[in-house]
């Protein structure tokens, strides 16, 4: 009852909102009801007030946002009406915008005035605050120009030619490795001669790869074939490098000799850094001793950790080879790769599934002035052995063997603190197959029909067992059968499927034929 009265009075008040309070009072029939009406009136007024205040507050905000983001908002005067405009003086209103003219007139009138207004300023935001591609390009041109100028001023005044020496031989991963090194050499901003020494004679295959570089190349072949063991391979590679040095000596190539193995990775700073070498320099080489077998690697890692704990020789386990310096950047010794964790576990044969370890000091960590090799050169230092009379059969192991006094070597790359190149030997199995020049011709016979994608759920039974297929486990990397994945989203209700799935493969469709054949692949080794 009370509730209905309350409701009625409310309605009453609503309908008579323009009546005067006295008439409202007279229209109600009880003092209790009158109180309730007054209460509602006060509540209403309160709500009105709140909404008024909020509305005012938000209108200011909206006003602010509207104006601060619009393009026409390039105002410079305070816009808040309640804020006094704080000009320094009245002259600012009729000011000229030309600073020079302004300055002179002000000095003339000898009054302290400024065109700069103290107080609130707008935040100028342009309508489309995004970079203009043309300007971005211009900025990059400026950056490029500045850097070029820096190079001209602080770079090498006269750059020396780089003579890169690379021993190689035809194998599965030759194209992979040689192309990588070739691309690095192609980026070198100095004159460059690339001496490629090939075991087993100079082949067209190697020739074709290095011809693509457009570099000046000298392709030398030696008769010996690359042996199967890592140890013998290293020895032959030393012989091949010496062969290249002999070419340098005979042709009197003038520049800096670097040993770019086809499995090195070079940072571009290396080529700038070796320009600083006077006679015989060395840089740090990052060693990526890997193991083909994941389990093997984990084991060796654990073992290494144990050893670290036991011996607490963390520094020696850093996989870096290179010069060791004292605090005054003098060469005091060498960091060599810690082979202990790999003891008895390293690869002997090239296709062993085990860690491949570097030599004590890899040749790629050394650079030398080619004049050291010349028969006659000015100011040739006395601490170098005569290259002409050097007998490579007498245990030339590292480039230090070329020197009488290895302490004269110049450490480069912030005294070996910068690793400027990396060493990683990855080779395929010796009996692995690859198409000559990595050109697939004739086409592979394995075909999953294009129409049949996505892949069928059940891998189709290779129906061509009769063909002389190389088992995958034997390292034939040519054939890859992708693993089928189930696509739950593809499974639809039969109703829809009947309409739409004309070209969709049914999950049980096994008509796809997969051929895995290598019979056409020429065996190269």
């Amino acid at each position, binding site marked *: 009852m009370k509730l209905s009265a309350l409701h009625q009075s409310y309605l009453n008040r609503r309908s008579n909102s323009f009546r005067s309070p006295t008439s409202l009072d007279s229209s109600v029939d009880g003092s209790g009801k009158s109180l309730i009406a007054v209460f509602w009136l006060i509540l209403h007024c309160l709500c009105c007030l709140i909404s008024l205040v909020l509305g005012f507050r938000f209108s200011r905000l909206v006003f602010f946002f509207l104006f601060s983001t619009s393009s026409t908002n390039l105002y410079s005067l305070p816009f808040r009406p309640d804020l006094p405009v704080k000009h320094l003086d009245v002259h600012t209103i009729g000011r000229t915008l030309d600073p020079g003219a302004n300055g002179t007139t002000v000095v003339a009138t000898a009054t302290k005035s400024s065109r700069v207004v*103290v107080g609130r300023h707008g935040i100028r*935001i342009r309508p489309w605050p*995004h970079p203009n591609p043309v300007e971005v390009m211009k900025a990059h041109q400026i950056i490029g120009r500045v850097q070029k100028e820096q190079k001209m001023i602080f770079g090498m005044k006269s750059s020396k030619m780089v003579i890169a020496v690379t021993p190689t031989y035809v194998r599965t991963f030759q194209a992979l490795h040689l192309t990588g090194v070739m691309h690095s050499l192609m980026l070198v901003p100095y004159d460059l001669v690339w001496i490629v020494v090939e075991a087993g004679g100079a082949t067209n295959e190697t020739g074709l790869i290095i011809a693509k570089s457009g570099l000046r190349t000298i392709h030398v072949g030696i008769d010996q074939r690359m042996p199967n063991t890592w140890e013998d391979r290293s020895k032959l590679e030393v012989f091949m490098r010496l062969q290249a040095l002999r070419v340098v000596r005979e042709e009197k190539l003038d520049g800096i000799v670097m040993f770019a193995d086809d499995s090195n990775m070079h940072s571009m700073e290396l080529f700038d850094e070796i320009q600083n070498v006077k006679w015989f320099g060395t840089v740090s080489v990052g060693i990526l001793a890997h193991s083909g077998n994941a389990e093997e690697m984990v084991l060796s890692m654990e073992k290494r950790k144990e050893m670290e704990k036991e011996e607490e020789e963390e520094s020696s386990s850093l996989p870096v080879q290179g010069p060791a310096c004292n605090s005054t950047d003098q060469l005091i010794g060498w960091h060599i790769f810690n082979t202990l964790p790999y003891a008895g576990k390293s690869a002997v044969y090239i296709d062993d599934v085990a860690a491949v370890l570097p030599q004590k000091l890899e040749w790629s960590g050394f650079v030398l002035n080619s004049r050291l090799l010349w028969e006659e050169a000015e100011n040739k230092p006395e601490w170098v052995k005569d290259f002409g009379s050097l007998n490579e059969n007498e245990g030339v192991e590292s480039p230090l063997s070329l020197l009488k006094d290895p302490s004269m070597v110049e450490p480069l790359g912030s005294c070996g603190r910068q690793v400027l190149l990396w060493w990683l030997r990855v080779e395929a199995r010796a009996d692995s197959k690859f198409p000559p020049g990595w050109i697939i011709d004739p086409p592979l016979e394995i075909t999953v029909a294009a129409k049949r994608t996505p892949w069928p759920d059940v891998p189709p039974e290779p129906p061509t067992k009769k063909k002389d297929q190389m088992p995958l486990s034997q390292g034939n990397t040519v054939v890859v059968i992708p693993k089928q994945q189930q696509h739950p989203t593809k499974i639809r209700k039969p109703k829809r499927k009947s309409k739409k799935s004309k070209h969709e493969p049914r999950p049980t469709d096994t008509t796809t034929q997969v051929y895995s054949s290598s019979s056409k692949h020429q065996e190269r080794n």
Partner: protein
Amino acid sequence: MKLSSCVLIFLLCNTFSSISAFRLSRSQPTERISGSAGDVLEDDPVGRLKVFVYELPSKYNKKILQKDPRCLNHMFAAEIYMQRFLLSSPVRTLNPEEADWFYVPVYTTCDLTPNGLPLPFKSPRMMRSAIQLIASNWPYWNRTEGADHFFVVPHDFGACFHYQEEKAIGRGILPLLQRATLVQTFGQRNHVCLKEGSITVPPYAPPQKMQSHLIPEKTPRSIFVYFRGLFYDVGNDPEGGYYARGARAAVWENFKDNPLFDISTEHPTTYYEDMQRAIFCLCPLGWAPWSPRLVEAVIFGCIPVIIADDIVLPFADAIPWEDIGVFVDEKDVPYLDTILTSIPPEVILRKQRLLANPSMKQAMLFPQPAQPGDAFHQVLNGLARKLPHERSVYLRPGEKLLNWTAGPVADLKPW
């Protein structure tokens, strides 16, 4: 605390380090430099002027410093190093009769809050007290009423002695200093806090610290525009638009997503190194038109982009700021990218060559001990160029120009 514009910069300076010479090993070719006063950057002031240093009770200088040694490292430290320099300088004379200039060593800015911000509330009374002292103990002040005296007032708004611009303008330059020559960092044309004849100096930046962060000059400059610092000072300017007259906020709003602009409020530890890897360094105004970025940009060879209308730059009569920097009007901040990318590369390279000039860098620094051509010497050169004093600066006997009772009543209380 409107001074918190300086907080970030101050953070850079707050490690206490002994100051030593800033050795510059520049090999870049440079060209001769002339400012508005001609080729004066490498002038030697010795023999061209004599300065008498008043001996004040230590409560005006040494005691204040003992109370807070942080004063040695903040960006207003020039007032301290100036005195140290003059005491051992060959231009100093012990005979006040032969002096051309008189120096009053008062450390008015060395009154720091716990956060390290200088609040110059006591400065006017302290300055007044010092002037009263020299006026009563020596005859030289009354001879000219300060026209041949100079004071170092490195605070935000110089001798207006208030950190808020409006209040500073309201106060004006301390009445007692109206005839003296002021050496100050504040510089804005036609501003009541910069009187004619003042010498604008760079803010103090720690030379040794900067030197220890030098990287090889061949390091490629790969950042187009660099800035670290506040865009909004929410604490002191919650509405926005007062701080930096909206210019810093405009930089952020227009270029926060522009990959050419390396801008942020975070001060990285590699701040100095990054400046050496940048082509343009933004030097927008903050609460005051100047900031230590000007010095840092010059030292690190980064072209200063000066966004502060009507700024008066340090030693503008000796340093060709127009040639080494880029000036952008505050209203043009939204077009900063267009303005900077349309500068011809040759102009940019010339600016960099000029910036590489060692004497330019030297003039921006207050090294300990002083070195030829440094900021101390530029101040002396500036003073020497004002010589000889006009006859009119010397007052007739009995003539009084200064009103000793002018200014707010609070300033008249004894210090």
